[in-house]
Every structure is written in C-alpha cells, then in structure tokens.
C-alpha cells in the first residue's frame, strides 16, 4: 500500500490536450490497404485540439432502429494539430464494427467520432528516455503513431521496436518501418514471425521470450520507457518479463487488444 500523494506508481506521462467533449461528425477522406484485412482510414474533422501519440478516438455507429455500438481505436497518425486523424483497423470476420469500417464505409461518408481520449498510454517527443516499443499484431498501431511522431521531432531519443507478427504478409506498415530504419536516426526494428517465415527471412521466428528481450530491449540500466501493445496474453507476458529483467513497473506502459475479458 502506498502513501497518498507519494505514490511510486504514478508513471511519467505527458500532458494530454483537453479532450473535446461529445461527438462530432467525421468525414472519411482516404482509405489505404496496409496488409490483408488491415486498412488505414483517414477522417477529417470539424474541430481538433491536437493529440498525443498513443491516444484514442471513439467511433459510434447507430443503426436505423437506434441500436448503437461504440468502439475505441488507437490513432495511427503522428501527434499534431492537423484536423485529420488516421486509424488502422484490422477486419475481424465476425466483428460487429470492423467489417463495417473496412468494407462498407465509403469515401465522403460521415461517422460519429469522439476524442482524442486517454492520457496513460502516451508518448511525446520531449521525453528524452530511450523508447522501447514492443508490438504484437495490430498492437503496432499506437506504437506507429509514436514512431511517426518521433520521425518528425527535432530531438529523437534512441528507439527500438520489437514487432511480433504471425507471418510476413501480416506485418503492418512493413515498408514504412523499413524506410524509417534507413534514415539511421537511432531507430532499430526487429521482427519476429510466430507462424512461419519466408525462405530468405533473417529475423526471429518464435514468440517473444526472455532471450529475445535481452537481445533487443534496452537494458534497465539505460532507464528506457517501455510501451507494449498487443493481445492481452502477449502484453501481460512481455510486461512480466520486463519486470523480471529489472525494469520498474512505472516505466512499463501497456495496452491490450482483444475480445474483452478473454485471455488471447
């Protein structure tokens, strides 16, 4: 039990812009294919106070009979004040909202949007600590916002991405990540494929394990800030392993995706 006001668990978090309350009508202005069943959707907005890398938006769908479904999506585009926000959505075959977003919503259509929201899983470029990003599957999306934000910043801390995908084709943002690494600005990217790799693959081919973290993560002595995003079981396993490697919990931020209440 901690002492009120002296808690050691309050992590360093950048100030988030005050959220715009309530819903606004966003217009779909661009669609990009990123990987099989993964699309990026760009929305233009009447108002936008800016956002931090790692923040979310909520989308709300209302059917003709009044039924509403709300979903929270990580913002993929870099931090900034431009009233255009991108999300990257994986289509889940029996999902309630993602098939609509990825297959039915057309350019020029409008949808209710709220945000940006969330200040916990956020990073801003004025944080000089080494930046360690660990992604499982579509958990790459908020981490991509951080890398895009970093790539536009004047001062860039050293950064590493460890990205676990099922197979080569499902690596989201693969060519963009390659392009970021080519600039040699202190970013390194390591991929691991858990369900088979092409013949000429020179990355890792297993689940993220302690040896892989020891090889690719910043050591605790460098005091990195760690962001882990992916399916629940992936995130909790990796977070536990970082703690075991000596990283304080206050510098391990997690965001879990998946069917709620279920271990992936």
């Amino acid at each position: 039990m901690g002492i009120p006001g002296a808690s050691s668990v309050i992590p360093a978090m950048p100030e988030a812009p005050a959220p715009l309350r309530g819903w606004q009508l966003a217009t779909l202005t661009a669609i990009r294919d990123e990987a099989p069943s993964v699309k990026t959707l760009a929305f233009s907005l009447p108002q936008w106070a800016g956002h931090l890398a790692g923040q979310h938006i909520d989308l709300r769908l209302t059917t003709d009979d009044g039924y509403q479904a709300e979903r929270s999506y990580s913002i993929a585009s870099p931090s900034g004040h431009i009233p255009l926000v991108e999300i990257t959505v994986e289509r889940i075959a029996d999902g309630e909202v993602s098939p609509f977003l990825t297959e039915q919503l057309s350019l020029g259509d409008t949808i209710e949007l709220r945000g940006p929201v969330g200040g916990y899983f956020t990073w801003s470029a004025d944080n000089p600590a080494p930046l360690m990003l660990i992604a499982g599957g579509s958990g790459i999306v908020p981490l991509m916002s951080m890398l895009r934000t970093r790539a536009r910043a004047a001062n860039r801390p050293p950064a590493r991405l460890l990205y676990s995908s099922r197979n080569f084709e499902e690596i989201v943002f693969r060519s963009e990540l390659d392009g970021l690494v080519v600039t040699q600005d202190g970013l390194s990217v390591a991929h691991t494929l858990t369900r088979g790799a092409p013949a000429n693959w020179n990355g890792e081919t297993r689940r993220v394990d302690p040896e892989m973290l020891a090889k690719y993560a910043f050591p605790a002595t460098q005091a990195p800030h760690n962001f882990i995003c992916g399916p629940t079981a992936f995130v909790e396993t990796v977070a536990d392993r970082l703690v075991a490697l000596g990283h304080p919990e206050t510098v391990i931020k997690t965001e879990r995706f998946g069917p709620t209440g279920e271990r992936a």
Partner: protein
Amino acid sequence: MITDARTADGNAVAGPLSQIFAFDVTRMIVTCSACGSESPLGALRLYGDTMGMVLRCVRCGEVNLRALQFNGIISLDARGATRMTFPLPANLR
C-alpha cells in the same frame, strides 16, 4: 457481440468517462480494495463493453470499478477501489 479486436483495458473507458470528468481518468491511480496494489486506471483489465464496463485488478482480479452507461446516464460503482489518486495537470497545480 464483443468479437472485434479492440481495447481490452482501462484505456477504453477514457471516452465514455471524458463526458463526466474534467480530467483524463486513465492516468488516475487506483488502489485495489482486495490486494492493495496500485495501478493506473488505463492498465486495469476490462470486461464487458461500453454499456457495462467492469475494470478488474491486474494482480488479483478484484472488480475495482464498474461503469454503466444507458438511457442517458453514466453510473459508477467504485467499491472495489479504496483510493483514487489523480496527477493534476500542470495548469491546476
């Protein structure tokens, strides 16, 4: 149906609760009433969906917070949290 791959932790309540709180709740530190562990709300484990969200302690599974949203109201049950600690934004310190 809650089958979409989507946020499965306290980060998902940021939007609904942004309508009633003046600050971002995901940064709030929640003290579990069962095991005493402290965690940012954003890191708690989420069950349910936006109509009825249950946030559980990552360590022991205790229900720390329940948020119900229906018929134009939001109802919070916080009996599983003995304390909530808020980092004040810079302009309020």
